[in-house]
């Protein structure tokens, strides 16, 4: 589905007509990434990150397939085979550094993409399913990244695998059975490494499948935009190609420049030095930390230190429940934030809550990267409590009591007003001053 004014695909060559009758892939591309897809004309650079995440996924798959040609999933030689890639395989060091750094950059792109969605209300109807598919991708990414990190079979790999698989033993009654089943033994060993390799190779393709569903679900209502209001007429949109293909390629250039800078000048700044020590099941590193992109969730896991209520539910189970709930809660966000206004640009209270929440995540991330000692434990407890309060108390409450700023009548109006009123931005903030300034019929046509 698309807007009625979307351009129609017309094959020009005889071959184009032939293919269009049998397998209309050019038509699909034209209607989803080409001139046949009208997109709100006011998207800012935060809207580049979906495409950047897609490119990051492709980069991970390409470098990963190459690495799998040289890696050996056996506990005796796994670590050595990684060093073999680094030292002996032609250009292997670059492939591995691109893959390891690529994972971090993938998470950067996805986290910015998610916070963009949170700020502009992209999770609200009619895009709830789109939002939930994105969360499924996030969960799959986390599983994939975790298992990939284990494959190196260094100290952090081994002890990370030990700690994370032990989470499942917190489940009452059947936890220990599940734990043994996941590992294929009583501790992480060859069976574990082999199955993680198998799944680490499989999951990216599952992610690719869900990404296709995610893009499909996006194309039904079309993209959200910084005003959060619906597209009303042709004047509100521009064709995806060439306008956003050009904008995305520019963003991609910036992204890849930064990526290359880290790959070539600081490939280990985001990693842990302990993972260059081969795995030793009899000696735990003094300070086990996951990769930075798990820090906020790791902090929530460790924030539970007492059994409650009345010592009935162990702290360990609370930690596991808390960590999983932190992500699963996001699935309910479309129904927790009931405000009909999407964009935080027009929600003075929700905007403040958003930035406090971002600060809370940063605090959780810092706590998650620190050893389990004071003041970090206490700080992570407060920050974890706030994390849940943000979704369960603050957002529902704001949705009830907040008085949103007046919304513009259309995207075009908002864009034009910003250009004519640049001298007096404060005047726009006055309640009631926004809507009446332009007559609703005053849509300008885009300069196509």
């Amino acid at each position, binding site marked *: 589905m698309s807007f009625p004014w979307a351009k129609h695909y017309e094959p020009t060559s005889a071959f184009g007509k032939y293919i269009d009758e049998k397998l209309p892939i050019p038509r699909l591309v034209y209607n989803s990434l080409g001139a046949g897809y009208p997109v709100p004309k006011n998207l800012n650079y935060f809207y580049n990150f979906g495409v950047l995440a897609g490119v990051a996924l492709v980069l991970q798959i390409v470098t990963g397939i190459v690495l799998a040609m040289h890696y050996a999933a056996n506990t005796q030689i796994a670590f050595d085979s990684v060093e073999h890639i680094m030292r002996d395989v032609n250009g292997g060091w670059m492939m591995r550094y691109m893959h390891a750094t690529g994972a971090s950059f993938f998470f950067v792109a996805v986290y910015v993409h998610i916070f963009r969605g949170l700020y502009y209300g992209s999770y609200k109807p009619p895009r709830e399913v789109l939002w939930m598919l994105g969360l499924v991708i996030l969960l799959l990414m986390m599983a994939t990244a975790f298992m990939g990190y284990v494959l190196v079979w260094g100290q952090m790999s081994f*002890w990370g695998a*030990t*700690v994370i*698989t*032990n*989470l499942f*033993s917190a489940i009452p009654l059947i936890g220990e059975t599940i734990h*043994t*089943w*996941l590992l*294929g*033994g*009583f*501790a*992480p*060993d060859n*069976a574990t490494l082999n*199955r993680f390799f198998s799944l680490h190779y499989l999951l990216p393709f599952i992610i690719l499948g869900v990404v296709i569903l995610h893009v499909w679900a996006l194309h039904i209502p079309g993209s959200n935009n910084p005003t959060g209001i619906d597209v009303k007429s042709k004047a509100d949109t521009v064709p995806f190609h060439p306008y956003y293909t050009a904008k995305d390629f520019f963003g991609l250039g910036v992204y890849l420049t930064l990526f290359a800078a880290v790959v070539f000048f600081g490939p280990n700044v985001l990693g842990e030095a302990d993972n260059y020590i081969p795995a030793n*099941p*009899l*000696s*735990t*590193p*003094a*300070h*086990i930390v996951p990769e930075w992109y798990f820090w906020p969730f790791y902090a929530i896991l*460790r924030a*539970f*230190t007492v*059994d409650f209520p009345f*010592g009935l539910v*162990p*702290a*360990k*189970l609370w*930690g596991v429940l808390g960590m999983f709930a932190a992500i699963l809660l996001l699935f309910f966000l479309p129904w927790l934030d009931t405000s009909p206004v999407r964009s935080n640009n027009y929600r003075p209270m929700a905007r403040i809550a958003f930035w406090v929440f971002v600060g809370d995540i940063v605090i959780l991330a810092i706590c998650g990267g620190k050893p*389990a*000692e004071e003041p970090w434990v206490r700080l992570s407890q407060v920050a974890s409590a706030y994390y849940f309060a943000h979704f369960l108390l603050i957002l529902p409450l704001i949705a009830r009591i907040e008085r949103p700023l007046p919304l513009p009548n259309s995207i075009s109006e908002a864009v034009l007003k910003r250009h004519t009123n640049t001298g007096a931005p404060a005047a726009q903030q006055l309640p009631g001053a926004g809507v009446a300034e332009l007559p609703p019929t005053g849509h300008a046509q885009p300069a196509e």
Partner: protein
Amino acid sequence: MATQPHDQLTETGAPLDERRRDFIYIATGAFAAAGAATVVWPLVNQMNPSADVLALASIDVDLSPVAAGQAIKISWRGKPVFVRNLTPAEQAAANKVDIKSLRDPETLAERTKPGHSNWLITLGVCTHLGCVPLGAGEGENRGDFGGYFCPCHGSTYDTAARIRKGPAPKNLEVPAYVFKTPTQVTIG
């Protein structure tokens, strides 16, 4: 419509025919579901520990070189096991504790074998998230209660390897073992 053979049956009672069809659908569906379940089970079960992993289930340990106050770390089923020769003072400290005040109430006698109460044999696996606690090696941090200390999340165990402080829910697990001779023990 005349080409549909079922029209002839409606005169004798369409509901009867529909019930027969419903039954066939449900029976077919149930048969397919049972078939799918029998296919899924081997796919799930292959992930359980294999025969060679289970075969390494027991080991023999010689206790004679372990002096009082010392501990050794050995590997069993891919996990470390702490074998500790408790001094009389350490045993007395463990016995002095009020059992009711413990998170996981057990006496030292319950955690050792009769006549061998100086030999504390436990898994070296923190019951929180599976790290190896410190305290079995020479000069390692034994925590506030003189037993073991887990560096990962700060769980502290006493001289009977019972949880006293920190996030771990249980005492260090005591594996199944038997004394073959006073200085020879079989674990597993």
